[in-house]
């Protein structure tokens, strides 16, 4: 998997003095890892976006993810872009090409710089922080100011990298025009000029033979979809019929709301920024009551405020979809970092007893399909459904072949009411037909107090018991339709690695590097209730290792409580960052010994 890099002796020189050697300084064959680092507000995301999209359009598999500080300007942030001939969907520590945009950037990623890492950038930024011999100076700001100012550094850099990687300049320019389509012609022209200069540098570098990049392009990739978890989740929600979103801004969930707001007119969605999360969840419940499909999207701290509303949904048997974009807590924690820390909170939140469903997408495709399914499940079983993502998953991009909104048929579950309608009519299954006000002749009465079949407040304790049974019984129905865990690897495994949610591709790639025949990976996309096959999978293993991005192996605890099974080893990470493939492979190796 590692890039094949061939190094020859060379001396530091400027671009003008081309050094011709028989052998290339660097040669990339399969998989390149590029890291862009700089300050917030410098536009690294623009470079990331232009680069990844044009690479994908050229037939490369791409993956990118960001880590950044909680600030608007300044700080030290980095973006990883992996470019490969094969599908890549997880972060690596290795840096093949490092492009620092501000001083401090090199130091920020120091730990990951190896003797093989090549640096491309400004002398004044790099020279104080890097003593190695793999530095290729590129006067980005000089080139940008020739075009019109530092803002054009982004287009220069993106074009240079695209050029190095063999993106056709015509394709790059077309994408650039598309990307800046909202701007005036002057801005577009200047960016095109910046791109021209970036391409010229890349040509010089390639001609000099100092960099050789021989990644295979794949035609079938060109037409794939390159999106991040946010976009996939938002589109999945729309596919699930979501037409109401209420939220209070909180990283990393805000981007979902922003996305839905941007397409709200297109897809007929009411998006309301509430005064607080308490209001947001009550609005979402009110929206379901009146016949819409409401989403409450937040992070752990915001969900803490929503807990009372969750309990309301449980009592009144309202469908509800709650998205929690997890980040490290407690309290404000690390606002822009990642963690799988809210599983137990989501599972046990809310006063009183009521059923719920917890989904945890592992891939971009899962973000879409599980968001869609969440609305369907919520409506069918009249229960709250959680979607647990995290900063890492939401803000990772990679290309996927396709997503198809027609895979799940969305049917509205509410009924036209008749005179004498009873919202909580006692039935065999515990499910009562859900009416909505203004559709039919009946009255739809709901109460957060214990209620009778009509929905009116009651203190009849026999009825109370019946109503508790009615609500809890729905869990049996829910158990009939669960997302099964996915087994990756041989059926006859000795060691079983367990994971849930966003670690899917990380664990897959790390296991791939181990090249061990009797290791399999079981990934859970539904973390509550557990699929009935779960115990069978666990019992077959001689040894089990659980991998979680939290400090207390929360899913391991769920497994223990739900099945009585104790996992042998835990691999946990809770410093706010996702695992890297190399790190996890090493940890797995040592867990096997």
């Amino acid at each position: 998997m590692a890039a094949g890099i061939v190094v020859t002796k060379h001396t530091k020189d400027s671009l003008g003095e081309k050094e011709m050697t028989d052998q290339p300084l660097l040669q990339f064959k399969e998989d390149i890892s590029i890291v862009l680092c700089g300050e917030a507000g410098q536009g690294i995301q623009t470079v990331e976006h232009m680069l990844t999209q044009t690479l994908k359009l050229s037939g490369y598999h791409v993956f990118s993810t960001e880590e950044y500080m909680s600030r608007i300007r300044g700080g030290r942030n980095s973006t990883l872009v992996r470019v490969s001939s094969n599908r890549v969907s997880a972060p690596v520590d290795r840096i093949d090409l490092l492009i620092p945009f501000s001083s401090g950037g090199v130091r920020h990623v120091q730990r990951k710089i190896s003797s093989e890492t090549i640096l491309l950038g400004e002398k004044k930024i790099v020279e104080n922080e890097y003593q190695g011999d793999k530095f290729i100076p590129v006067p980005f700001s000089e080139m940008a100011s020739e075009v019109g100012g530092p803002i054009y550094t982004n287009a220069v850099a993106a074009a240079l990298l695209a050029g190095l990687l063999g993106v056709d300049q015509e394709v790059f320019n077309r994408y650039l025009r598309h990307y800046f389509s909202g701007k005036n012609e002057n801005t577009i022209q200047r960016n095109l000029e910046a791109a021209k200069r970036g391409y010229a540098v890349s040509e010089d570098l390639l001609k000099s033979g100092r960099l050789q990049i021989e990644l295979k392009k794949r035609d079938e990739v060109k037409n794939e979809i390159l999106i991040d978890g946010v976009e996939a989740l938002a589109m999945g929600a729309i596919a699930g019929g979501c037409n109401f979103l209420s939220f209070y801004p909180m990283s990393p969930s805000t981007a979902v709301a922003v996305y839905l707001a941007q397409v709200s007119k297109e897809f007929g969605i009411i998006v309301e920024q509430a005064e607080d999360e308490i209001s947001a969840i009550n609005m979402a419940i009110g929206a379901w009551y009146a016949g819409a499909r409401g989403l409450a999207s937040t992070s752990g701290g915001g969900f803490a405020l929503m807990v009372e509303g969750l309990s309301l949904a449980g009592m009144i048997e309202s469908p509800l979809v709650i998205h929690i974009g997890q980040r490290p807590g407690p309290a404000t924690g690390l606002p822009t970092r990642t963690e799988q820390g809210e599983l137990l909170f989501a599972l046990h939140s809310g006063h009183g007893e009521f059923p719920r469903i917890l989904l945890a997408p592992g891939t971009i495709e899962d973000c879409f399909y599980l968001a869609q399914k969440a609305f369907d499940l919520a409506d069918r079983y009249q229960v709250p459904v959680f979607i647990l993502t995290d900063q890492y998953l939401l803000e990772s991009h990679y290309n996927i072949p396709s997503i198809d909104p027609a895979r799940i048929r969305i049917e509205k579950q509410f009924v036209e009411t008749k005179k004498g309608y009873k919202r909580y009519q006692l039935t065999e299954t515990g499910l009562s037909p859900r009416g909505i006000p203004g559709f039919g002749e009946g009255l739809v009465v709901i109460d957060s107090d214990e209620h009778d079949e009509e929905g009116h407040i009651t203190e009849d304790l026999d009825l109370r018991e019946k109503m508790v049974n009615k609500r809890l019984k729905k869990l049996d129905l829910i158990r009939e339709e669960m997302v099964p865990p996915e087994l990756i690897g041989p059926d006859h495994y000795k060691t079983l690695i367990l994971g849930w949610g966003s670690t899917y591709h990380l664990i897959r790639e790390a296991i791939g590097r181990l090249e061990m025949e009797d290791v399999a990976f079981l990934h859970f996309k539904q973390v509550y209730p557990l699929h009935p096959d779960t115990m069978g999978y666990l019992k077959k293993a001689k040894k089990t290792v659980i991998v979680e991005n939290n400090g207390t192996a929360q899913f391991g605890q769920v497994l223990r409580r739900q099945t009585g099974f104790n996992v042998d080893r835990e691999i946990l990470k809770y410093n706010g960052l996702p695992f890297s493939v190399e790190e996890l492979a090493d940890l797995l190796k040592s867990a096997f010994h």
Partner: protein
Amino acid sequence: MDIKRYDMEDTDIAWCPGCGNFAILNALKQALSELEIQPERLVVVSGIGQAAKAPHYYRCHLFNGLHGRSLPVATAIKAVHPELTVIDESGDGCMYGEGGNHFIHTIRRNPDITNLVHNNMVYGLTKGQASPTSLPGFKTPVQREGVFHETFNPLALAVSLGASLVARAFAGDTRQTKEMIKKAISHKGYALVDILQPCVTYNKWNTYQWFKENTYEMDPSHDPYDRMEAFRRASEVGKLPLGVFYLNPKPTFEEKLSVYQESKEPLYQRSLDTQKLSAWIHSKRGL
């Protein structure tokens, strides 16, 4: 419309005999019947408290939610199904205490809902603690030396926030209360009616007699479109003015929502255009 259309069979009303809530219930039913609002087209949202039980005692669609959280629910219902008449009915603790933040921001949002607040200046359901509207010096088992917090003035606050309609009624005057409720329901936009009512069990100070002596109906010469004047009247202490303090016609929350720009159809009647979404996803493939 026959007022009996709102009557429920076999209701076990939980209020104390002589409670001001009975008068408000009566006035509301009269208002609804005079406005010919069918129970099937009426949604009442309430919170928790003695006042919040009111909609259990007349026929309507009812969402009796959490303490203090009725306004966000009412706003969402109206936004999703604007053809329905939506009333939010609860007490002073629910609306001005627990739900204070929602009160502020619902006024700013301006949904076309009617907000009826039964204001008895005391917490009844929890047995007699002070409310945000309790008067200074009001003694309770908790506020033993008497309330020393500034009294919450919902009307002045609502005027200051540019509420679309701000009114006050006294439950002891059914005719006036009914008129205020009718005005509020007929008004387009958020309409607050703060309804003074005695609590016969826990508030021995602000009694029927006290309210009679300490309220007066505003002169018809009061100009409700004059915000400064409305604020001045709403700020009066001592004898409390009754009537419409302030009118501020403006577009409602629902009217501003993009979903109703091309079609007025409530959301429940709409379906997702899957082809449109597929085309949208397809557009992500490239240029």
